[in-house]
């Protein structure tokens, strides 16, 4: 059994972080350069962590599988970033951001972590503006805001529909500066394939150079994973095609606990699936719900009609009807399920019947087409490219799709996993969003972790490690990890089966979407747990990975990632099966109120489930970290 000590500081909520920063140990400036830190991943969390630690004086090595750090999938976040600046004078505060996030997460996140996130949110905006992030501004030159789901204040900062891009380019510019200064050693096209644990501490990684195929060992005093989420388990998602779980999954197999893997976010507004060749789903930003209204035909007979011919009286603005106080800005899990229910009733739009309308005609009447274009033009363009339809003329068709994973590696308040020396940041960890993430909070968390949390907490760990004590890459543990990696590649290349990797990824995605998607049942999950081990065996017996391991080989890269996805999918189903309640993105049909809302069981499941690997053919151990709510009362989430 792993020990899960959350290390939450004592004292009043608002003082915890301040007090903790005073209490934790420091490494003096001259000693910092004696410590080497490995950062894997260069999205918002990874880039901001690598550059911040380098600026402080640590020696940093950063590994990213992309050809450039600027390609990480943080780049695709559209809508915005939350911060408790209260520039709108509308009643926002650190406490309100904290409260909205805790409630939005359906009371399944840690209070202390979320409060810290809300506290540093304002610093993030300052930091990004100083770096030159061109946030939207008002005519007076001050920063503009918009609204996002799950909040009744306007606290979201944005850069057109490309906020993630601009924030990532800001973090990338800081990383580039530190690389140029020689403070960070950057390795692109470098994929982490194993974690090296020496005497119980994370002390290095095994890397494959994706261009040359070379496998190398890298030692360090601490390892930071900032490798993003695992939504591509579903094959079709809004993730980038290459986003993967390999780094966190291999760390899991080395002893790091995986927390709440079943918490997946299904985003309500994505462009619906059009065919089985499809490789990805595209998000239509939540920000569109500021001005767009979501509806479905009241009558089943209208479902196939041209939406413009359906009269106002025959339209059901179901979010406004069901959740009058939040309306179209109901949180994502709630809006997604509402859309699913409408489609299940047979009122869904489009050829597949899996779609509802996102309608801008009211907004166009109010703001003019140009007004709408100024706010969301690039999103309308994306919609047009994909569907060949104009969102200005006809309501957009949207349907929920996998978008984010709240689960991830378990970390304590210092963002350190149960494997000492292994830190996990951003979407890769589980800590801040509970069972559902609010819009515009992912960017906030990634940058909070990298700029304002890890710079403090990594020092607390390193101060306890003797400078220069990191192991040599000749240590037995490095050798074993390298052999593990080369063995896997050999096996994939040697199978010479009949099916391409994509075949298995599609089948995995279908099993997961059917049984571990928006609505889950005991029977469904149990059947998935039968199908997945069989799929895993079939994959290893019949996959075809052409080419060799000593050159750029995209099939080989994909094989390793899909192998991990299949295993992780199994753990997700297991987690979903054992969590006998509904909360946030995890909806068990057995546990709902008569109106279809989530029925939590705080008594039995007011905890984090952190799974511990025991070997592939053994059931993992389910460890529990109780969630002690000291300041907020767990209550039924109400957006009505």
């Amino acid at each position, binding site marked *: 059994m792993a020990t899960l000590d959350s290390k939450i500081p004592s004292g009043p909520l608002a003082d915890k972080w301040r007090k903790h920063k005073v209490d934790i140990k420091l490494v003096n400036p001259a000693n910092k350069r004696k410590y080497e830190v490995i950062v894997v991943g260069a999205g918002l969390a990874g880039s901001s962590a690598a550059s911040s630690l380098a600026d402080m004086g640590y020696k940093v090595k950063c590994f990213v599988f992309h*050809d450039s750090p600027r*390609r990480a999938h943080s780049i695709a976040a559209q809508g915005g970033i939350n911060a408790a600046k209260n520039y709108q004078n509308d009643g926002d505060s650190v406490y309100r951001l904290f409260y909205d996030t805790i409630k939005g997460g359906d009371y399944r996140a840690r209070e202390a972590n979320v409060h810290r996130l809300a506290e540093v949110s304002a610093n993030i905006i300052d930091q990004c503006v100083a770096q*030159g992030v061109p946030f939207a501004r008002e005519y007076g030159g001050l920063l503009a805001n918009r609204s996002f789901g799950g909040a009744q204040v306007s606290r979201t900062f944005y850069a057109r529909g490309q906020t993630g891009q601009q924030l990532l380019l800001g973090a990338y510019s800081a990383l580039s500066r530190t690389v140029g200064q020689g403070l960070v050693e950057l390795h692109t096209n470098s994929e982490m394939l194993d974690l090296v644990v020496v005497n119980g501490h994370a002390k290095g990684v095994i890397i494959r150079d994706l261009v040359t195929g070379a496998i190398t060992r890298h030692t360090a005093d601490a390892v930071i994973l900032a490798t993003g989420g695992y939504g591509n388990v579903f094959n079709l998602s809004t993730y980038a*095609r290459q986003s993967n779980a390999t780094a966190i999954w291999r760390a899991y197999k080395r002893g790091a606990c995986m927390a709440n893997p079943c918490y997946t976010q299904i985003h309500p507004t994505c462009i619906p699936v059009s065919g089985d060749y499809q490789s990805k789903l595209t998000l239509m930003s939540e920000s569109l719900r500021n001005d767009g209204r979501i509806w479905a035909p009241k009558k089943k007979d209208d479902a196939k009609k041209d939406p413009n011919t359906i009269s106002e009286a025959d339209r059901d603005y179901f979010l406004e009807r069901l959740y009058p106080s939040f309306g179209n800005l109901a949180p994502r899990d709630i809006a997604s399920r509402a859309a699913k229910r409408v489609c299940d009733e047979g009122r869904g739009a489009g050829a597949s019947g899996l779609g509802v309308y996102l309608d801008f005609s009211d907004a166009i009447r109010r703001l003019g087409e140009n007004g709408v274009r100024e706010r969301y033009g690039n999103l309308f363009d994306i919609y047009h490219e994909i569907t060949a339809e104009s969102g200005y003329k006809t309501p957009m068709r949207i349907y929920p799709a996998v978008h984010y994973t709240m689960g991830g590696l378990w970390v304590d308040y210092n963002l350190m996993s149960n494997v000492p020396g292994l830190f996990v940041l951003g979407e890769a960890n589980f800590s801040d969003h509970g069972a559902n993430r609010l819009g515009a909070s992912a960017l906030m968390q990634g940058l909070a972790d990298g700029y304002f949390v890890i710079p403090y907490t990594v020092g607390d760990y390193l101060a306890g490690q003797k400078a220069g004590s990191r192991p040599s890459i000749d240590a037995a543990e490095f050798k074993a990890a390298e052999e593990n990696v080369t063995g896997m590649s050999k096996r994939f290349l040697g199978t010479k089966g009949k099916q*391409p990797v994509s075949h298995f990824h599609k089948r995995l995605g279908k099993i997961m979407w059917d049984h571990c998607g928006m609505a889950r049942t005991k029977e469904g999950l149990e059947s998935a747990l039968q199908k997945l081990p069989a799929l895993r065996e079939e994959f290893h017996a019949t996959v075809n990975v052409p080419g060799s391991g000593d050159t750029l080989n995209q099939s080989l890269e994909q094989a390793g990632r899909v192998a991990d996805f299949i295993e992780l999918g199994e753990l997700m189903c297991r987690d979903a099966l054992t969590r006998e309640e509904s909360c946030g993105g995890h909806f068990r049909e057995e546990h709902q109120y008569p109106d279809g809302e989530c029925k939590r069981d705080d008594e039995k499941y007011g905890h984090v489930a952190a799974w511990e690997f025991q070997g592939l053919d053994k059931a993992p151990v389910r460890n529990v970290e109780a969630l002690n709510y000291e300041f907020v009362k767990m209550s039924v989430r109400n957006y009505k």
Partner: protein
Amino acid sequence: MTLRVWRQAGPKALGQFKDYAAKDLNSNMSFLEMLDVVNDELTLKGEVPIAFAHDCREGICGTCSLTINGKPHGPGKGIATCQTYMRSFHDGDIIVVEPFRAAAFPLIKDLVVDRTSFDKIMQAGGFITARAGSAPEANAAPVPKGVSDLAMDAAQCIGCGACVAACKNASAMLFVSAKVGHLGLLPQGQAERDRRVLAMVHTMDEEGFGNCTNQYECSAACPKTISHDFIARMNRDYLGATLRSAFQPEAASSDGGGA
């Protein structure tokens, strides 16, 4: 349809065009999804699939980089390769697919090129130095909306390299000027404005990119339709910075030397 694809096993191998039949296509399929299907067929036949760079598939990460029928990112205006759909082509077409070709983008394999040179330019000066923790209050310095919007126009660059591939000189002026323009327009970017443009232009030259001869193929190919006006802006900045750096007195000690 017939695909005529550039195949090259490695940087030193000889490359050649190879024809592949693409069947059973759907007009709603993206160009990259069509390549996925072709690759799965090649795999089943025991052949090595076509290597091509891609990731987000929504036009923002800048990874995809195909020259389709001679045009970087294909026939559409203001979109990336991944946003090109099969409805842009016709039955029976021969589609020629090549990598982004430029001396500063050496080929890795098939359709994948190495764009590290862009990162090097960014590392030389594409930033505003602002350590975490040192930033002033965000609303302390107002930025006129027009200036901020113009900076955003430039900041949208996705770093794909289509501008270079489209230019007969393989010049990176649009890429560099977009970053110089973005940061140089903002009040926060003034302290390093001269250093930035000098360092970035110097590195651009060092990395082997060509010069600009004002034909604007770059902005025509740019998936974010970034204007070549930024090139003019950078030229002016560069000239000013060169003059100032020649005549500006330098402090005797730049290292502070405090207690």
